[in-house]
């Protein structure tokens, strides 16, 4: 395990009561209502979800069913309208903006459909970005970004700008970035959606490798071949979880 910054503050006790739980993610009756002035749209209508450490969870469902909304809540990019959400033992239903930022930095790694790399800086600098926010010293940042880029097979592309990389390579940089702070969970929203079959296959293989390495993964996908590789498939429809099944797959 990589030791991070010495001056890294101890993870704050975030909620009023810390809940001892074996699960990394626990949602109870979570609702999300988007209030767009006139219309109130209930995107999530009471979701209950438990994800334990080391799981590889695929979320599937039709367009507009609320998958991305769910992922934003899991990743603390947004807060639920009601319900309870415990991430890694801490109740994060009601925390400040700064605390949310801190949680996103340390506990969650995001992978997006359109990669969302910062275009003006190199692959290595992109991977280092969460480490900058996490207060990791320069030297450690360099080592960590090299190690991660080598792990995703881009050891020779460290100094390339994202525009000089292929889609599959960009997504691998994004995955390296998501892993930088050793998060509790890696969240991916349609990570293969913008890739061709072969690049998508590479990414899927990479996810499986991470799973084998002990990472917890939550992946939203329309791609049945990706969903098939997960250890558990959750189906969302109209803001509710309608099915939750384990597959035969094991990390090993």
């Amino acid at each position, binding site marked *: 395990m990589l030791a991070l910054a010495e001056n890294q503050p101890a993870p704050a006790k975030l909620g009023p009561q810390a809940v001892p739980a074996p699960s990394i993610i626990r949602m109870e009756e979570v609702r999300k209502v988007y209030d767009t002035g006139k219309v109130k749209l209930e995107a999530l209508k009471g979701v209950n979800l438990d994800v334990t450490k080391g799981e590889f969870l695929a979320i599937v469902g039709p367009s507009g069913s609320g998958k991305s909304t769910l992922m934003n809540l899991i990743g603390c990019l947004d807060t639920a309208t009601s319900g309870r959400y415990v991430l890694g033992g801490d109740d994060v239903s009601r925390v400040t903006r700064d605390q949310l930022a801190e949680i996103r930095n340390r506990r969650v790694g995001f992978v997006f459909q359109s990669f969302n790399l910062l275009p003006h800086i190199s692959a290595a600098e992109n991977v280092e970005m969460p480490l900058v926010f996490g207060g990791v010293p320069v030297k450690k940042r360099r080592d960590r970004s090299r190690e991660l880029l080598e792990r995703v097979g881009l050891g020779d592309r460290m100094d390339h700008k994202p525009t000089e990389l292929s889609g599959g390579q960009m997504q691998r940089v994004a995955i390296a970035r998501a892993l930088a702070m050793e998060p509790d969970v890696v969240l991916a929203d349609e990570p293969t959606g*913008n890739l061709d079959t072969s690049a998508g296959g590479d990414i899927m293989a990479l996810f499986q490798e991470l799973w084998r390495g002990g990472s917890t993964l939550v992946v939203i996908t329309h791609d049945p071949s990706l969903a098939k590789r997960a250890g558990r498939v959750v189906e969302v429809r109209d803001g509710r979880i309608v099915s939750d099944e384990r597959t035969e797959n094991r990390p090993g």
Partner: protein
Amino acid sequence: MRDLKVVFHLFEQSSRLAKKRAFLTIAAIAWGTVAILLLLAFGEGLKRQLDSNRKAMGENIAVVWSGESSKPYKGLPVGRDIKFRIEDIELLRARIPEANFAGEIIQWRTSLAYGTKAVNSRVKGVHVEWGDMRKHFPVEGGRWLSALDEKEKRRVVFMGDETAKDVFGTTDPVGKLLLINNAPFTVVGVMQRKVQMGAYSGPDKNAVVIPISTFKAMFGRDQLSNIVVQSPKPGQMKGILRQMNEVLGGKLGFDPEDDRALPTWDTVKSAKTNMNFSMGIQIFLGIIGALTLLIGGVGVANIMYAVVKERTKEIGVKMALGAKARWITLPFVLEGLVYTFLGGAAGTLIAVLLVTGMGFIPSQGNRVMEFLGKPTLSPLIGLATAGILGVIGLLAGWFPARRAASIDPASTLRYE
């Protein structure tokens, strides 16, 4: 500490791609700074020039004329002419010792001649003390009238510089004989050139001055045209003038409260008006300059707004990766400040060079500059400009930064 490191890191990364933008914004601020500094420098020069022109007639002086009573006094009717004479000066000096008094009698259009050259000019008879009070300083080689001149009623004359030139041309008048109404007078001195703002009965350069005793003997008049009063400090003028009204009122028979009896020009009072006028001009120019600078600031803010908008997604990504709101905002504030600072420094340099350059233009005989003065930069101007620049810099970064901070990462990242 960590905040600072993160902010500088992000600032450094984003400033790499902004060369052209940086140049434009810095130029806008520099232009605004030059404008405000030059305007204020002109204002300051004008103020100083007005001040010195105004003081050229005399400092802390008042001029008192004889008037007409408008209030009945001890049975005397209204409408009486009030007249004062040379001897009244003695009375005033004795009764109000802290002030200076001098009498002045004017003879209009008197013929002055030297050789074949003859002109008509004013001749004034004055007390010796009048010269200092009214700033009649002699050019090197000559002198002002002396107490002995006055005592012995000598036929000596001190000439205004322009009249001296009209009569003598390029000849040095000192020691020459000037015929005043055909009576020979020795020229003892010529007045130093001065730019005079404010005068009564014509500018000093166009008159000649003789001792008041000589004047009385020659023209047979001892009724004063006016009295010049000087107070030791500006604040005392009001009290001295009141005392003067009481002394003369008692002697000449008018109510000391009667303000028509002795019409008075109190230059201390009008100096205040003048100061307010200069101040008003300064403020006006300052506001114009500040507005110019503000336009530069709006330019900076605008460009940075555009940057925020253009980078909305980037900001959302950074937030998703764990950036706190202040780490997003502070680089923008810093950027605004740095641009403003650099622009301000460049502008100040240009303005200082320009003002210094203008300082080399000779002002002697240049009528425009004699009136407007030389543009001058003062520490106060620098301070005011720096203050305005600082505020504008902060605001220019602050508003765009606030917009950046209000970005909601979830909705930014939603649309793929």
